[in-house]
Protein backbone atom coordinates (compact mmCIF):
# COMPACT_ATOMS: atom_id res chain seq x y z
CA UNK A 1 0.00 0.00 0.00
CA UNK A 2 1.15 3.50 -0.79
CA UNK A 3 0.59 6.31 1.71
CA UNK A 4 1.00 9.60 -0.07
CA UNK A 5 1.44 13.03 1.49
CA UNK A 6 0.70 15.78 -0.99
CA UNK A 7 1.72 19.37 -0.33
CA UNK A 8 -1.00 21.82 -1.34
CA UNK A 9 -0.06 25.02 -3.12
CA UNK A 10 -2.40 27.94 -2.51
CA UNK A 11 -2.47 31.71 -2.14
CA UNK A 12 -4.16 31.81 1.26
CA UNK A 13 -7.67 31.71 -0.16
CA UNK A 14 -7.68 29.46 -3.23
CA UNK A 15 -6.13 26.11 -4.00
CA UNK A 16 -3.71 26.24 -6.94
CA UNK A 17 -5.10 24.28 -9.93
CA UNK A 18 -1.90 22.21 -9.98
CA UNK A 19 -3.03 20.44 -6.79
CA UNK A 20 -5.98 18.67 -8.45
CA UNK A 21 -3.57 17.49 -11.17
CA UNK A 22 -1.02 16.30 -8.64
CA UNK A 23 -3.78 14.33 -6.89
CA UNK A 24 -4.70 12.81 -10.27
CA UNK A 25 -1.12 11.56 -10.60
CA UNK A 26 -1.01 10.23 -7.04
CA UNK A 27 -4.31 8.42 -7.57
CA UNK A 28 -2.70 6.38 -10.37
CA UNK A 29 -0.55 4.59 -7.82
CA UNK A 30 -2.18 1.30 -6.78
CA UNK A 31 -4.02 1.34 -3.45
CA UNK A 32 -2.95 4.89 -2.76
CA UNK A 33 -4.09 6.62 0.42
CA UNK A 34 -3.72 10.30 -0.28
CA UNK A 35 -3.47 12.94 2.43
CA UNK A 36 -3.25 16.58 1.36
CA UNK A 37 -1.54 18.99 3.76
CA UNK A 38 -2.28 22.71 3.77
CA UNK A 39 0.29 24.96 5.43
CA UNK A 40 -1.24 28.38 6.01
CA UNK A 41 -1.84 31.16 8.47
CA UNK A 42 -5.52 30.36 8.27
CA UNK A 43 -6.28 27.18 6.37
CA UNK A 44 -10.02 26.53 6.49
CA UNK A 45 -11.02 27.95 3.10
CA UNK A 46 -8.26 26.17 1.20
CA UNK A 47 -8.74 22.98 3.23
CA UNK A 48 -12.43 22.83 2.29
CA UNK A 49 -11.50 23.11 -1.35
CA UNK A 50 -8.86 20.37 -1.01
CA UNK A 51 -11.32 18.12 0.84
CA UNK A 52 -13.56 18.24 -2.23
CA UNK A 53 -10.98 16.59 -4.46
CA UNK A 54 -11.75 12.98 -5.35
CA UNK A 55 -9.36 10.29 -4.06
CA UNK A 56 -8.27 12.42 -1.12
CA UNK A 57 -8.50 10.47 2.15
CA UNK A 58 -7.80 13.31 4.61
CA UNK A 59 -6.83 16.95 4.54
CA UNK A 60 -4.33 18.00 7.20
CA UNK A 61 -3.97 21.66 8.14
CA UNK A 62 -0.96 23.23 9.81
CA UNK A 63 -1.87 26.76 10.86
CA UNK A 64 0.95 29.05 11.82
CA UNK A 65 1.59 32.77 11.22
CA UNK A 66 4.97 31.71 9.79
CA UNK A 67 3.07 29.90 7.00
CA UNK A 68 1.40 33.06 5.70
CA UNK A 69 3.77 33.23 2.73
CA UNK A 70 5.02 29.96 1.28
CA UNK A 71 8.76 29.99 1.97
CA UNK A 72 10.49 26.72 1.12
CA UNK A 73 12.97 27.07 3.99
CA UNK A 74 10.11 27.42 6.49
CA UNK A 75 7.85 24.74 5.03
CA UNK A 76 10.43 21.98 4.48
CA UNK A 77 11.07 21.11 8.16
CA UNK A 78 7.30 21.04 8.77
CA UNK A 79 6.76 18.64 5.86
CA UNK A 80 9.49 16.41 7.25
CA UNK A 81 7.89 16.52 10.71
CA UNK A 82 4.77 15.01 9.13
CA UNK A 83 6.57 12.62 6.79
CA UNK A 84 6.79 9.61 9.08
CA UNK A 85 4.76 6.69 7.77
CA UNK A 86 4.35 8.06 4.26
CA UNK A 87 5.82 6.12 1.34
CA UNK A 88 5.52 9.08 -1.08
CA UNK A 89 5.67 12.85 -0.67
CA UNK A 90 4.42 14.73 -3.74
CA UNK A 91 4.26 18.38 -4.71
CA UNK A 92 3.29 20.14 -7.92
CA UNK A 93 6.02 20.97 -10.42
CA UNK A 94 5.37 24.69 -10.10
CA UNK A 95 7.90 27.23 -8.86
CA UNK A 96 6.44 26.51 -5.38
CA UNK A 97 7.02 22.75 -5.61
CA UNK A 98 10.33 23.03 -7.44
CA UNK A 99 11.65 25.26 -4.68
CA UNK A 100 10.27 23.21 -1.78
CA UNK A 101 10.59 19.53 -2.64
CA UNK A 102 14.42 19.33 -3.00
CA UNK A 103 14.66 20.78 0.51
CA UNK A 104 12.33 18.05 1.80
CA UNK A 105 14.39 15.41 0.00
CA UNK A 106 17.65 16.80 1.43
CA UNK A 107 16.28 16.72 4.99
CA UNK A 108 15.12 13.13 4.47
CA UNK A 109 18.45 12.17 2.91
CA UNK A 110 16.96 10.94 -0.36
CA UNK A 111 17.12 11.89 -4.01
CA UNK A 112 14.12 13.54 -5.61
CA UNK A 113 12.25 12.78 -8.82
CA UNK A 114 11.32 15.93 -10.75
CA UNK A 115 8.40 16.30 -13.17
CA UNK A 116 6.65 12.92 -13.07
CA UNK A 117 4.79 12.60 -16.37
CA UNK A 118 3.54 9.06 -15.95
CA UNK A 119 3.21 6.45 -13.23
CA UNK A 120 4.52 3.02 -14.29
CA UNK A 121 4.38 1.43 -10.84
CA UNK A 122 4.41 2.49 -7.21
CA UNK A 123 8.14 3.28 -7.46
CA UNK A 124 8.57 3.59 -11.23
CA UNK A 125 7.92 6.84 -13.06
CA UNK A 126 8.65 8.52 -16.36
CA UNK A 127 9.99 12.05 -16.62
CA UNK A 128 11.32 14.31 -19.39
CA UNK A 129 14.97 15.39 -19.58
CA UNK A 130 16.91 17.59 -22.04
CA UNK A 131 13.90 19.89 -22.51
CA UNK A 132 11.76 16.88 -23.39
CA UNK A 133 14.16 15.53 -26.02
CA UNK A 134 14.31 12.29 -24.05
CA UNK A 135 12.02 10.51 -21.62
CA UNK A 136 13.65 8.53 -18.85
CA UNK A 137 12.09 5.81 -16.72
CA UNK A 138 13.17 6.17 -13.09
CA UNK A 139 13.04 3.36 -10.54
CA UNK A 140 13.10 4.51 -6.93
CA UNK A 141 14.12 2.13 -4.14
CA UNK A 142 11.18 0.63 -2.24
CA UNK A 143 12.79 1.12 1.17
CA UNK A 144 13.01 4.93 1.07
CA UNK A 145 10.34 7.63 0.75
CA UNK A 146 9.71 8.80 -2.81
CA UNK A 147 9.94 12.60 -2.90
CA UNK A 148 8.72 13.94 -6.23
CA UNK A 149 7.17 16.78 -8.16
CA UNK A 150 4.40 16.15 -10.66
CA UNK A 151 4.33 17.73 -14.11
CA UNK A 152 0.87 19.35 -14.12
CA UNK A 153 0.57 19.44 -17.93
CA UNK A 154 0.63 15.63 -18.02
CA UNK A 155 -2.53 15.29 -15.93
CA UNK A 156 -6.15 16.35 -16.05
CA UNK A 157 -7.53 17.78 -12.81
CA UNK A 158 -9.19 15.11 -10.68
CA UNK A 159 -12.92 15.50 -10.00
CA UNK A 160 -14.28 17.49 -7.09
CA UNK A 161 -17.16 15.55 -5.58
CA UNK A 162 -15.48 14.40 -2.40
CA UNK A 163 -15.83 15.59 1.16
CA UNK A 164 -12.78 14.26 2.96
CA UNK A 165 -12.32 14.96 6.65
CA UNK A 166 -10.14 17.92 7.64
CA UNK A 167 -7.83 17.52 10.62
CA UNK A 168 -5.74 20.19 12.25
CA UNK A 169 -2.22 19.01 13.14
CA UNK A 170 0.71 20.56 14.97
CA UNK A 171 4.27 20.71 13.70
CA UNK A 172 6.46 21.31 16.71
CA UNK A 173 9.69 22.02 14.87
CA UNK A 174 12.06 24.94 14.98
CA UNK A 175 11.63 27.15 11.92
CA UNK A 176 14.51 29.07 10.38
CA UNK A 177 14.44 32.89 10.56
CA UNK A 178 17.11 33.37 7.88
CA UNK A 179 14.61 33.73 5.02
CA UNK A 180 12.00 36.50 5.04
CA UNK A 181 9.18 37.38 2.67
CA UNK A 182 9.28 41.00 1.48
CA UNK A 183 6.76 41.41 -1.27
CA UNK A 184 4.94 39.80 -4.20
CA UNK A 185 4.14 41.52 -7.46
CA UNK A 186 1.52 39.31 -9.07
CA UNK A 187 0.72 39.70 -12.73
CA UNK A 188 -2.70 40.82 -13.90
CA UNK A 189 -5.36 38.24 -13.15
CA UNK A 190 -8.13 39.49 -15.44
CA UNK A 191 -7.17 36.98 -18.14
CA UNK A 192 -7.56 33.20 -17.94
CA UNK A 193 -4.68 31.48 -16.14
CA UNK A 194 -2.06 30.29 -18.59
CA UNK A 195 -1.71 26.85 -17.02
CA UNK A 196 -5.42 26.03 -16.81
CA UNK A 197 -6.88 27.91 -19.79
CA UNK A 198 -8.36 25.67 -22.48
CA UNK A 199 -7.08 28.10 -25.11
CA UNK A 200 -3.73 29.87 -25.08
CA UNK A 201 -2.30 32.39 -27.53
CA UNK A 202 1.37 33.26 -27.37
CA UNK A 203 3.52 35.83 -29.10
CA UNK A 204 7.21 35.88 -29.93
CA UNK A 205 9.89 38.38 -30.73
CA UNK A 206 8.31 39.06 -34.13
CA UNK A 207 5.65 41.16 -32.37
CA UNK A 208 8.42 43.74 -32.16
CA UNK A 209 7.20 45.79 -29.20
CA UNK A 210 5.14 45.91 -26.05
CA UNK A 211 2.55 48.02 -27.88
CA UNK A 212 2.14 45.59 -30.76
CA UNK A 213 1.65 42.77 -28.29
CA UNK A 214 -1.84 44.27 -27.97
CA UNK A 215 -2.66 42.40 -31.18
CA UNK A 216 -2.25 39.19 -29.17
CA UNK A 217 -4.41 40.46 -26.29
CA UNK A 218 -7.16 41.49 -28.71
CA UNK A 219 -7.29 38.04 -30.26
CA UNK A 220 -7.09 36.41 -26.81
CA UNK A 221 -10.07 38.41 -25.60
CA UNK A 222 -12.03 37.34 -28.62
CA UNK A 223 -11.29 33.69 -27.84
CA UNK A 224 -11.33 33.88 -24.04
CA UNK A 225 -7.77 32.63 -24.17
CA UNK A 226 -4.83 32.88 -21.78
CA UNK A 227 -1.81 34.77 -23.09
CA UNK A 228 1.77 33.52 -23.11
CA UNK A 229 5.05 34.40 -24.75
CA UNK A 230 8.33 32.96 -25.94
CA UNK A 231 11.49 33.57 -23.96
CA UNK A 232 12.63 36.05 -26.63
CA UNK A 233 9.52 38.20 -26.13
CA UNK A 234 10.00 38.20 -22.36
CA UNK A 235 13.71 38.96 -22.65
CA UNK A 236 12.88 41.84 -25.01
CA UNK A 237 10.61 43.27 -22.32
CA UNK A 238 7.34 43.04 -24.29
CA UNK A 239 5.66 41.06 -21.50
CA UNK A 240 6.45 40.05 -17.88
CA UNK A 241 8.28 36.85 -16.87
CA UNK A 242 5.21 34.96 -15.66
CA UNK A 243 4.04 34.71 -19.27
CA UNK A 244 7.03 32.69 -20.49
CA UNK A 245 6.25 29.25 -21.88
CA UNK A 246 8.92 26.58 -22.21
CA UNK A 247 11.67 24.60 -20.52
CA UNK A 248 12.47 27.41 -18.10
CA UNK A 249 8.99 28.91 -17.97
CA UNK A 250 5.58 27.31 -17.85
CA UNK A 251 4.57 23.96 -19.29
CA UNK A 252 1.04 24.15 -20.64
CA UNK A 253 -1.52 21.74 -22.08
CA UNK A 254 -4.48 23.71 -23.48
CA UNK A 255 -6.93 22.25 -26.00
CA UNK A 256 -5.88 24.97 -28.45
CA UNK A 257 -2.50 26.68 -28.62
CA UNK A 258 -1.80 29.44 -31.14
CA UNK A 259 1.86 30.44 -31.57
CA UNK A 260 2.30 33.77 -33.28
CA UNK A 261 5.68 34.91 -34.50
CA UNK A 262 7.37 32.19 -32.45
CA UNK A 263 10.08 30.26 -34.31
CA UNK A 264 9.78 27.20 -32.07
CA UNK A 265 13.12 26.51 -30.39
CA UNK A 266 13.21 23.11 -28.67
CA UNK A 267 13.16 24.95 -25.32
CA UNK A 268 9.79 26.47 -26.27
CA UNK A 269 8.35 23.33 -27.83
CA UNK A 270 8.81 21.35 -24.64
CA UNK A 271 6.35 23.73 -23.00
CA UNK A 272 3.55 23.15 -25.53
CA UNK A 273 3.87 19.58 -26.80
CA UNK A 274 0.93 18.41 -24.68
CA UNK A 275 -1.44 20.91 -26.28
CA UNK A 276 -4.44 19.39 -28.08
CA UNK A 277 -4.12 21.39 -31.29
CA UNK A 278 -1.15 23.60 -32.12
CA UNK A 279 -1.62 26.45 -34.59
CA UNK A 280 1.44 28.30 -35.87
CA UNK A 281 1.48 31.64 -37.65
CA UNK A 282 4.92 32.70 -38.83
CA UNK A 283 6.39 34.53 -41.80
CA UNK A 284 9.28 32.07 -42.07
CA UNK A 285 8.04 28.87 -43.65
CA UNK A 286 11.20 27.09 -42.43
CA UNK A 287 10.47 27.90 -38.78
CA UNK A 288 10.70 24.74 -36.63
CA UNK A 289 7.31 25.54 -35.07
CA UNK A 290 5.71 24.20 -38.27
CA UNK A 291 7.21 20.75 -37.56
CA UNK A 292 4.91 20.36 -34.55
CA UNK A 293 1.96 22.47 -35.71
CA UNK A 294 -1.35 20.80 -36.54
CA UNK A 295 -2.35 23.86 -38.55
CA UNK A 296 0.23 26.20 -40.05
CA UNK A 297 -0.16 29.55 -41.76
CA UNK A 298 2.78 31.34 -43.36
CA UNK A 299 2.43 35.10 -43.50
CA UNK A 300 2.81 38.48 -41.89
CA UNK A 301 1.27 38.51 -38.44
CA UNK A 302 0.50 42.21 -38.69
CA UNK A 303 -2.00 41.56 -41.48
CA UNK A 304 -3.13 38.13 -40.29
CA UNK A 305 -3.95 39.01 -36.68
CA UNK A 306 -6.44 41.84 -37.34
CA UNK A 307 -8.08 39.68 -40.02
CA UNK A 308 -8.28 36.73 -37.66
CA UNK A 309 -9.71 38.79 -34.80
CA UNK A 310 -12.30 40.07 -37.25
CA UNK A 311 -13.16 36.62 -38.61
CA UNK A 312 -13.69 34.96 -35.23
Amino acid at each position, binding site marked *: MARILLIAEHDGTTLNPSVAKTVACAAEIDAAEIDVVVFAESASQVATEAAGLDSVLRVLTVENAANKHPLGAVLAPQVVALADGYSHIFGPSTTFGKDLMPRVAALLGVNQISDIMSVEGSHTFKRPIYAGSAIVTMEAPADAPVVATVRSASYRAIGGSNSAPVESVECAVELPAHTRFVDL*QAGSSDRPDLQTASRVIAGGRALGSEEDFDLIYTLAEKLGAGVGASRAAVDAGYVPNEMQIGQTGKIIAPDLYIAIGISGAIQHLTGIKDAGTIVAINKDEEAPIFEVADIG*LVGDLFTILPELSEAL
Partner: protein
Amino acid sequence: MKKILVGLKRVVDYNVRVRVKSDGSGVETDGVKMSINPFDEIALEEALRIKEKGAADEVVVVSIGSADSQQQLRTGLAMGADRAILVETGESVDTLSCARALLEIVNREDPILVIVGKQAIDDDNIQTGQMLATLWNRPAASFASQLEVDGDTVRVVREVDIGLETIEVDLPAVITADLRLNEPRYVKLPDIMKAKKKPLDQIPFADLGVVAGPQIKQVLFEPPSEREKGIMVDDVQGLVAALKDKGLV
Protein backbone atom coordinates in the same frame (compact mmCIF):
# COMPACT_ATOMS: atom_id res chain seq x y z
CA MET B 1 38.38 37.20 2.67
CA LYS B 2 34.86 37.24 1.26
CA LYS B 3 34.46 34.45 -1.26
CA ILE B 4 31.75 33.54 -3.69
CA LEU B 5 31.57 29.93 -4.81
CA VAL B 6 30.00 29.25 -8.20
CA GLY B 7 28.97 25.82 -9.47
CA LEU B 8 29.68 25.11 -13.15
CA LYS B 9 28.26 21.98 -14.76
CA ARG B 10 29.52 20.61 -18.06
CA VAL B 11 26.47 19.84 -20.21
CA VAL B 12 25.53 19.16 -23.81
CA ASP B 13 25.45 22.55 -25.53
CA TYR B 14 22.17 24.44 -25.64
CA ASN B 15 22.01 24.29 -29.45
CA VAL B 16 22.56 20.55 -29.85
CA ARG B 17 19.58 18.44 -30.81
CA VAL B 18 19.84 15.66 -28.28
CA ARG B 19 19.23 12.09 -29.48
CA VAL B 20 18.50 8.99 -27.46
CA LYS B 21 20.86 6.03 -28.00
CA SER B 22 19.19 3.22 -29.92
CA ASP B 23 19.67 0.76 -27.06
CA GLY B 24 17.85 3.07 -24.63
CA SER B 25 20.84 3.30 -22.29
CA GLY B 26 21.19 7.07 -22.40
CA VAL B 27 21.54 9.98 -24.79
CA GLU B 28 24.26 10.43 -27.40
CA THR B 29 27.14 12.47 -26.01
CA ASP B 30 29.98 11.17 -28.22
CA GLY B 31 31.34 13.92 -30.43
CA VAL B 32 28.69 16.34 -29.16
CA LYS B 33 29.62 19.92 -28.31
CA MET B 34 29.80 20.46 -24.55
CA SER B 35 29.50 23.78 -22.74
CA ILE B 36 28.96 25.37 -19.36
CA ASN B 37 25.32 24.98 -18.34
CA PRO B 38 23.89 28.38 -19.44
CA PHE B 39 22.29 29.06 -16.07
CA ASP B 40 25.66 28.47 -14.37
CA GLU B 41 27.24 30.98 -16.71
CA ILE B 42 24.67 33.51 -15.49
CA ALA B 43 25.54 32.52 -11.90
CA LEU B 44 29.22 33.18 -12.58
CA GLU B 45 28.52 36.52 -14.25
CA GLU B 46 26.57 37.62 -11.17
CA ALA B 47 29.40 36.58 -8.86
CA LEU B 48 31.88 38.55 -10.95
CA ARG B 49 29.65 41.64 -10.84
CA ILE B 50 29.32 41.38 -7.04
CA LYS B 51 33.11 41.17 -6.78
CA GLU B 52 33.55 44.10 -9.17
CA LYS B 53 31.25 46.18 -6.95
CA GLY B 54 33.53 45.41 -4.01
CA ALA B 55 31.12 43.20 -2.07
CA ALA B 56 33.37 40.13 -2.46
CA ASP B 57 37.09 39.51 -2.83
CA GLU B 58 37.37 36.21 -4.63
CA VAL B 59 35.28 34.12 -7.02
CA VAL B 60 35.92 30.37 -7.00
CA VAL B 61 34.37 28.11 -9.62
CA VAL B 62 33.74 24.47 -8.81
CA SER B 63 32.67 21.58 -10.99
CA ILE B 64 31.88 17.96 -10.22
CA GLY B 65 32.58 15.64 -13.11
CA SER B 66 35.14 14.03 -15.36
CA ALA B 67 38.56 15.48 -16.15
CA ASP B 68 36.97 17.02 -19.26
CA SER B 69 35.15 19.49 -17.01
CA GLN B 70 38.48 21.33 -16.80
CA GLN B 71 37.51 22.92 -20.14
CA GLN B 72 34.45 24.53 -18.61
CA LEU B 73 36.39 25.58 -15.51
CA ARG B 74 39.03 27.20 -17.76
CA THR B 75 36.25 29.09 -19.53
CA GLY B 76 35.02 30.22 -16.12
CA LEU B 77 38.52 31.40 -15.24
CA ALA B 78 38.69 33.25 -18.56
CA MET B 79 35.42 34.98 -17.73
CA GLY B 80 37.10 36.27 -14.58
CA ALA B 81 36.95 33.69 -11.78
CA ASP B 82 40.09 33.70 -9.61
CA ARG B 83 40.55 29.98 -9.19
CA ALA B 84 38.87 26.67 -9.88
CA ILE B 85 38.21 23.38 -8.15
CA LEU B 86 37.43 20.17 -10.00
CA VAL B 87 35.89 17.43 -7.92
CA GLU B 88 36.85 14.63 -10.23
CA THR B 89 34.85 11.49 -10.86
CA GLY B 90 34.33 9.25 -13.85
CA GLU B 91 30.93 8.17 -12.55
CA SER B 92 27.67 10.02 -12.85
CA VAL B 93 26.76 11.63 -9.54
CA ASP B 94 23.19 11.81 -8.22
CA THR B 95 21.91 15.20 -7.08
CA LEU B 96 21.99 14.48 -3.34
CA SER B 97 25.60 13.29 -3.56
CA CYS B 98 26.41 16.34 -5.65
CA ALA B 99 24.91 18.61 -2.96
CA ARG B 100 26.79 16.71 -0.25
CA ALA B 101 30.06 17.09 -2.18
CA LEU B 102 29.44 20.80 -2.66
CA LEU B 103 28.78 21.09 1.08
CA GLU B 104 32.26 19.64 1.72
CA ILE B 105 33.75 22.30 -0.57
CA VAL B 106 31.65 24.97 1.14
CA ASN B 107 32.96 23.84 4.54
CA ARG B 108 36.53 24.13 3.25
CA GLU B 109 36.10 27.47 1.49
CA ASP B 110 33.64 29.21 3.84
CA PRO B 111 32.01 31.45 1.18
CA ILE B 112 29.52 34.27 1.86
CA LEU B 113 27.54 33.24 -1.19
CA VAL B 114 27.15 30.16 -3.33
CA ILE B 115 25.59 30.89 -6.70
CA VAL B 116 24.49 28.11 -9.05
CA GLY B 117 22.18 27.93 -12.04
CA LYS B 118 18.54 27.27 -11.19
CA GLN B 119 18.64 24.15 -13.34
CA ALA B 120 21.00 22.20 -15.54
CA ILE B 121 19.70 21.87 -19.08
CA ASP B 122 20.61 18.18 -19.28
CA ASP B 123 18.62 16.51 -16.49
CA ASP B 124 16.35 19.55 -15.80
CA ASN B 125 16.16 18.54 -12.14
CA ILE B 126 16.09 21.99 -10.47
CA GLN B 127 17.34 20.59 -7.16
CA THR B 128 21.01 21.14 -6.37
CA GLY B 129 20.94 24.69 -4.96
CA GLN B 130 17.99 24.06 -2.67
CA MET B 131 19.49 20.76 -1.48
CA LEU B 132 22.88 22.31 -0.76
CA ALA B 133 21.34 25.17 1.25
CA THR B 134 19.21 22.76 3.27
CA LEU B 135 22.17 20.50 4.11
CA TRP B 136 24.19 23.63 4.98
CA ASN B 137 21.30 24.88 7.14
CA ARG B 138 21.38 28.19 5.25
CA PRO B 139 18.86 30.03 3.03
CA ALA B 140 18.38 29.32 -0.66
CA ALA B 141 16.91 32.04 -2.85
CA SER B 142 15.92 30.13 -5.96
CA PHE B 143 15.04 31.47 -9.44
CA ALA B 144 16.73 34.83 -8.82
CA SER B 145 16.22 37.51 -11.46
CA GLN B 146 17.74 40.33 -9.43
CA LEU B 147 19.86 40.48 -6.31
CA GLU B 148 21.41 43.07 -4.12
CA VAL B 149 23.92 42.38 -1.37
CA ASP B 150 23.41 44.75 1.55
CA GLY B 151 25.70 44.11 4.50
CA ASP B 152 24.84 40.73 5.97
CA THR B 153 21.71 40.20 3.91
CA VAL B 154 20.78 39.77 0.27
CA ARG B 155 17.55 41.00 -1.22
CA VAL B 156 16.49 38.71 -4.05
CA VAL B 157 13.76 39.12 -6.63
CA ARG B 158 12.55 35.66 -7.65
CA GLU B 159 10.72 34.68 -10.82
CA VAL B 160 7.71 32.71 -9.60
CA ASP B 161 4.66 31.41 -11.50
CA ILE B 162 2.44 34.35 -10.63
CA GLY B 163 4.98 37.13 -10.97
CA LEU B 164 7.95 38.44 -9.03
CA GLU B 165 8.52 37.66 -5.37
CA THR B 166 11.05 39.54 -3.27
CA ILE B 167 12.64 37.86 -0.28
CA GLU B 168 15.47 38.79 2.04
CA VAL B 169 17.96 36.17 3.17
CA ASP B 170 20.83 36.30 5.64
CA LEU B 171 24.37 35.56 4.51
CA PRO B 172 25.87 33.11 3.96
CA ALA B 173 23.29 31.94 1.44
CA VAL B 174 22.76 29.97 -1.74
CA ILE B 175 21.32 31.75 -4.77
CA THR B 176 20.06 29.96 -7.88
CA ALA B 177 20.23 32.06 -11.04
CA ASP B 178 17.33 32.47 -13.44
CA LEU B 179 17.60 33.61 -17.06
CA ARG B 180 17.08 37.30 -16.62
CA LEU B 181 19.53 37.84 -13.75
CA ASN B 182 22.09 39.20 -16.22
CA GLU B 183 23.70 38.65 -19.61
CA PRO B 184 27.02 36.87 -19.26
CA ARG B 185 30.08 38.60 -20.72
CA TYR B 186 31.98 37.29 -23.69
CA VAL B 187 35.39 35.80 -23.12
CA LYS B 188 38.24 37.67 -24.83
CA LEU B 189 41.32 35.97 -26.23
CA PRO B 190 43.85 37.56 -23.80
CA ASP B 191 41.66 36.35 -20.93
CA ILE B 192 41.84 32.80 -22.24
CA MET B 193 45.65 33.04 -22.16
CA LYS B 194 45.58 34.50 -18.65
CA ALA B 195 43.19 31.79 -17.47
CA LYS B 196 45.78 29.12 -18.26
CA LYS B 197 47.92 30.43 -15.40
CA LYS B 198 45.15 30.58 -12.82
CA PRO B 199 45.07 27.79 -10.21
CA LEU B 200 42.86 24.75 -10.86
CA ASP B 201 42.83 22.25 -8.01
CA GLN B 202 41.76 18.68 -8.62
CA ILE B 203 40.19 16.75 -5.78
CA PRO B 204 39.17 13.12 -6.28
CA PHE B 205 35.45 12.78 -5.47
CA ALA B 206 36.24 9.83 -3.19
CA ASP B 207 38.44 12.07 -0.99
CA LEU B 208 35.43 14.14 0.08
CA GLY B 209 33.95 11.25 2.05
CA VAL B 210 30.50 11.71 0.57
CA VAL B 211 28.03 9.03 1.65
CA ALA B 212 25.52 8.39 -1.13
CA GLY B 213 21.81 8.20 -0.33
CA PRO B 214 19.39 5.62 -1.74
CA GLN B 215 19.90 5.43 -5.51
CA ILE B 216 17.17 6.05 -8.04
CA LYS B 217 17.90 3.99 -11.15
CA GLN B 218 17.47 5.38 -14.64
CA VAL B 219 16.33 2.20 -16.32
CA LEU B 220 15.34 3.29 -19.82
CA PHE B 221 15.77 6.30 -22.10
CA GLU B 222 13.27 6.80 -24.93
CA PRO B 223 12.63 9.46 -27.54
CA PRO B 224 9.47 11.48 -26.91
CA SER B 225 6.34 10.57 -28.85
CA GLU B 226 6.11 12.53 -32.09
CA ARG B 227 3.14 14.66 -32.98
CA GLU B 228 1.41 13.78 -36.22
CA LYS B 229 2.20 15.89 -39.25
CA GLY B 230 -0.21 18.81 -39.56
CA ILE B 231 -1.68 20.74 -42.46
CA MET B 232 -0.79 24.11 -43.96
CA VAL B 233 -3.53 26.61 -44.77
CA ASP B 234 -3.21 29.47 -47.25
CA ASP B 235 -5.01 32.28 -45.51
CA VAL B 236 -7.07 33.38 -42.51
CA GLN B 237 -10.25 31.94 -44.04
CA GLY B 238 -8.54 28.57 -44.34
CA LEU B 239 -7.35 28.80 -40.74
CA VAL B 240 -10.79 29.64 -39.40
CA ALA B 241 -12.31 26.81 -41.45
CA ALA B 242 -9.74 24.34 -40.09
CA LEU B 243 -10.39 25.46 -36.52
CA LYS B 244 -14.15 25.13 -37.02
CA ASP B 245 -13.60 21.72 -38.53
CA LYS B 246 -11.93 20.59 -35.32
CA GLY B 247 -14.66 22.18 -33.22
CA LEU B 248 -12.18 24.57 -31.62
CA VAL B 249 -13.97 27.84 -32.36
